[in-house]
């Protein structure tokens, strides 16, 4: 989704940033502040979250901060459904597998992939 959203604007992004951090010059405004906010919230670190929130508010304004918080919160729900129900990660790219994206983004190093014997839903019939 990140890659597609960038391509729509005629831009590319190095997906390694998802797991390894984004380099300066990534063409997403305020990417460092956004990522710091996301990381602070996931870590449930109140003091770090407060600092990241104020930094983000200064860059995005109140409405932008609220929508950033709403997005971060949304993915605290999505990931739990995906991982507790065990839906096939091989369908994450609009129903298709995208092994090159998984490899590039570092997803193949995740526990679920490393320990999985699943390849496609059809294999499970």
């Amino acid at each position: 989704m990140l890659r597609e959203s960038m391509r729509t604007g005629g831009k590319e992004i190095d997906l390694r940033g998802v797991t390894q951090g984004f380099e300066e010059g990534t063409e997403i405004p305020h990417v460092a502040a956004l990522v710091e906010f996301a990381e602070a919230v996931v870590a449930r670190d109140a003091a770090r979250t407060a600092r990241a929130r104020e930094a983000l508010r200064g860059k995005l304004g109140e409405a932008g901060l609220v929508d950033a918080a709403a997005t971060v919160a949304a993915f605290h729900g999505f990931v739990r459904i995906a991982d507790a129900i065990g839906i096939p990660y091989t369908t994450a790219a609009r129903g298709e597998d995208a092994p090159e994206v998984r490899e590039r983004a570092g997803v193949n190093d995740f526990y679920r992939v490393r320990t999985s014997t699943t390849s496609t839903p059809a294999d499970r019939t």
Partner: protein
Amino acid sequence: MRTDLTESHDRAWAAIAAPGTWLEGARRVAVAAEIRRARECAYCAEIKAALSPYAVKGKHHTTGRLSEAEVELIHRVVNDPGRLTESWSQSVLARGLSEGEYVEIVGLVAMVMMLDTFSHALGAPPRALPEPQPGEPTRYRPSGAKKKAAWLPLVEPQDAVPADGPMYPSPKAGYIYRGLSLVPQSLRDYWALAFHHYLPAELVYRFDQSIRAISRPQTEVLAARVSALHQCAY
């Protein structure tokens, strides 16, 4: 604050307090309380820090209001969702939880985590838990549910019947939409909230449009980073 967002929160808490498909209102609110307790569980912190999450022995710090299987399900899904396995999910079911109860509880975890994380992110206190509403669960199991693509049964779009009620925005709805489909009401409650947090279904693949105060790439970089931090491969 967007009014659609605050109204979606009001509806979500009301739904959490109401009788569900397999759980009564009081048990659903007890699940919400356990979700909050799980975030302070020392045993879960040990599991999270361990290289081998299933080798750690101990006891969850619990409210004491739910069964052992329910507590194990809630705590692991709250604290270490990226390292759940199919054999673990089967072990939870073997301890006496039905598939419907499992899925309904996962739906509640997803909703409460979304609601509480939003409050935390904005520096607001979590909302007080609602009063449970009386009534009986519907105990409705979709006739088309099959265990095939995931660890738990799903209703594929082509297997949905009118009695299930509305579930999918399109026949091509991805597996993330189908995840809670064994319990259609949980699916509807979850997505009624999630669409206001993320994007409405009709805009998810419209990358040229944004109805939020942040751009679509900004939205997706947040989504990708949060998912990666949870080790979510989907």
